[in-house]
């Protein structure tokens, strides 16, 4: 039984064991083991050359990771909070994402940028954001956002072994909230771009990913009590995302609620919603509804209320069912 954050540390250790090109870098990832302990134990095991504390600069972290990757390492860089990716955003967008393309495929950067994301931890607007829209809209990046320990293991391994830059978002409010058995197999991987059907159902589809899976699951439980059977899909991977599964499952039931906690406008679910309407309009029995964060900066005092919680999800479900 292990938590998500423990799984991150153990998976990193396994991958560093397997492949000596894998190195870990970031602010406080060394002796400190990361401010969330996501790199705990690695410094002692692998030493300062493979577990590198960096200066306080996200541009240096992401940019240097690009150079390391190009030179043959497989860096896994930590951004301490997803909110702090922005000082290094140009390195992600202009360097990492476009390197393979602009070099005609002669150079590439196999690297992972890990970052804890999401609200509900009383962190205010710089320890709560979910910037996945910015990554997903940047061709050349892959984007992953698991919600369980097992998926964390499988997807992190896949990300590290991938030949392209992968942004690996971690649901920080679930870091220690869930424990589960995680497969032992050191080669247990989960493919990018495959959603997971967490629960099958007959009345409507609930789709979410990352931290919001917790609230979505709670809503589904609540619905079960009301004899409403929801199918629950965890996207897990946002670029590529599993359009095929989504379209197939939504077409079957005709009703869908989309849950994701970043601001509403151009939330990742805007894309999912648009695709559903464009591709399977005639199967829809009700408009897809998005339940998301608000179009405000992330507040402090209303830390929980900002999140699309079970109540808001249930209201959307009701609307969709009564349409």
């Amino acid at each position, binding site marked *: 039984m292990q938590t998500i954050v423990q799984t991150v540390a153990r998976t990193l250790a396994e991958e560093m064991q397997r492949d000596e090109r894998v190195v870990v870098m970031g602010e406080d990832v060394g002796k400190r083991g990361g401010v969330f302990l996501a790199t705990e134990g690695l410094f002692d095991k692998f030493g300062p050359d493979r577990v590198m504390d960096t200066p306080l600069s996200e541009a240096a972290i992401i940019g240097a990771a690009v150079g390391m990757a190009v030179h043959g390492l497989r860096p896994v860089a930590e951004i301490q909070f997803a909110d702090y990716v922005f000082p290094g955003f140009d390195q992600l967008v202009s360097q990492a994402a476009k390197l393979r393309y602009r070099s005609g495929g002669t150079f590439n950067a196999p690297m992972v940028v890990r970052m804890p994301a999401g609200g509900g931890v009383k962190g205010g607007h710089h320890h709560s954001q979910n910037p996945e829209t910015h990554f997903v809209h940047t061709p050349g990046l892959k984007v992953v956002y698991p919600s369980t320990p097992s998926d964390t293991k499988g997807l992190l391994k896949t990300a590290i072994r991938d030949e392209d830059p992968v942004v690996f978002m971690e649901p920080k409010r679930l870091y220690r909230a869930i424990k589960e058995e995680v497969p032992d197999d050191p080669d247990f991987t989960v493919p990018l771009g495959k959603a997971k059907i967490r629960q099958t159902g007959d009345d409507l589809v609930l789709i979410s990913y990352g931290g919001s899976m917790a609230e979505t699951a709670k809503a589904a439980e609540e619905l079960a009590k009301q004899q409403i059977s929801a199918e629950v899909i965890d996207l897990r991977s946002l670029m590529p995302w599993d359009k095929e599964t989504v379209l197939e499952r939504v077409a079957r039931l005709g009703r869908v609620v989309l849950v994701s906690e970043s601001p509403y406008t151009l939330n990742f679910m805007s894309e999912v919603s648009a695709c559903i309407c464009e591709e399977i309009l005639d199967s829809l029995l009700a408009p897809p509804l998005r339940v998301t964060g608000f*179009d405000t900066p992330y507040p402090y005092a209303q830390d929980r209320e900002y999140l699309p919680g079970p109540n808001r999800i249930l209201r959307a479900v009701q609307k969709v069912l009564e349409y």
Partner: protein
Amino acid sequence: MIADKQNFSPFNEEPISLISQAGEWTAPFACDLKDEQLKTMYQQMLAARLMDERFIKLQRSGKMSFVAPHSGHEAAQIAAAHAVRVGTDWLFPYYRDYGMTYALGEPLIEIFAQVTGSRLDTAKARQMPMHPSSKELNIFTGASAIASHIPPAVGAAISMKIRETGQVVLTSFGDGATSEGDFHAAINYAGAQGAPVVFLCENNRLAISVDFNKQTGAENIAIKAKAYGMPGYLVDGMDVLACYYVLQECVENARAGLGPSLVEAQVQRFGAHSSADDDSIYRSKEELEQMRQRDPLLRMRRFLENQGLWSERDENLFKKEILGEFQAIIDTLAEAEKVPLEWMFDDVYAEMLPHIAEQKKDFLG
């Protein structure tokens, strides 16, 4: 090294220090501060220390979600507040600077309201604890993103310069902050423009757990001023008067049109990085004990005692008074109403945009 208090020499190799550990005045010029101001400085240092301790208690009892203690930084912070003109000059502080903004005059009720996320917070409880701010006192509301307040600080200074307002900006940050691109972009712009701004680095040689020598290859922070064509001063950050005289000279130089300066106050972080940190993982008890020998409060207290300006009795009286003030404030805050839910939707723009109004309506029913 120090010719004249009006003229410290930049790029000094030993930190500028004016009082000894024993509290003796060691400078080649006379201390011209009035007794009252000297006492006030010490009282503010003491109040800041007590505030820190109170914050930690509040955090442990669940009344604050987070604290980043400033113990060990008081000398630099209180000196900064005395070096500027209150209400005229602008501060762009960082999260560890409640000592500074308190000494500048930020009311305790506002401070405690902010750190407890109260309805009485002038910033509407929009940020996590440790974000000082005051429109009246020209204290800019920072963001948590390290160094991101420095470009705005420089912009304000450029505005002061081109409009000849006679104002000065003082902005502070840690050693870790100097590695960020924003620090560089901003201080370089200030240097090119000769903007009236003083950059104060509170160098505690740690960024959370990361040691100074992993932060930069430079021997110190002050020397970085060379990269920007401005003077850089290395100051003993545990000596409130050294910090004061150097900062004050830099502020007045800036006001006089002589351009920006960088001041490195060598301080110590007595506590963990924050309530979310456990510093025993990366530093030893012995290290910490050694640091505490150099406590800035001890030194200033000895200085005052040597002059007959302070006694054990004064100490106890002042402590009692300030702790009483804290308690009264905490009681007031306990009675404040909850932060209204609907505040979540305000102040995104000057006027609420239709889609936010819709979201608000939909949420509040």
